[in-house]
């Protein structure tokens, strides 16, 4: 498909385990974002990549959270020593690097629902 793809769609894990969530952005999109959405809340910013580098990681809640994008395309969000409070839907989005007159539209995937028991 042409949209943002996220895997797995659902992940159930036990407290203390390690989790990886994958995002495959729209081809040609240089910007990639991770957001976290808790039930009944708006998406909460975690990290933003422009190419391979993390341009802004100010939203990562603590050092248990880490994300990489080694080749400037696919990204992986890694969560160590998971806690029950990490349970949420993790959304990935991608966008173009802006040129004059372009909109700042983010294209979101359907998310990975993480449940920590």
């Amino acid at each position, binding site marked *: 498909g042409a949209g943002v793809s996220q895997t797995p769609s659902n992940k159930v894990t036990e407290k203390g385990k390690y989790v990886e969530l994958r995002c495959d952005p729209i081809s040609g999109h240089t910007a990639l974002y991770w957001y976290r959405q808790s039930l009944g809340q708006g998406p909460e910013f975690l990290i933003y990549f422009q190419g391979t580098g993390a341009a802004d990681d100010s939203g990562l809640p603590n050092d248990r959270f880490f994300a990489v994008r080694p080749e400037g395309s696919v990204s992986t969000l890694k969560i160590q020593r998971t806690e029950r409070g990490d349970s949420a839907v993790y959304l990935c989005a991608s966008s173009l690097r*802006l040129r004059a007159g372009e909109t700042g539209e*983010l294209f979101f995937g359907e998310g990975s629902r993480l449940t920590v028991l």
Partner: protein
Amino acid sequence: QQQVKQSPQSLIVQKGGISIINCAYENTAFDYFPWYQQFPGKGPALLIAIRPDVSEKKEGRFTISFNKSAKQFSLHIMDSQPGDSATYFCAASIMAGGSYIPTFGRGTSLIVHP
């Protein structure tokens, strides 16, 4: 600290009515204000957006009104339809590294009764 405040949390409207959702922001560095629509089990999708040099933008039944001095903006959905039932998020965005980073409000769950 909630940088973008959105109200109401939920809204019920009859078919054909007007739905109004309001948002307010604090940071004057925000310079792009999109609205996203989200259906259950899906990611948010851009509905309409406005830049701060414009006071109103209309696309079909959807209109954004923007008040820069009050740091407020709102979404109006005219002739609301049952298919509009979804969660709506306002956002305020800052340019960083060549792309916008949106900060989202908490969302408004809209139900349009037939």
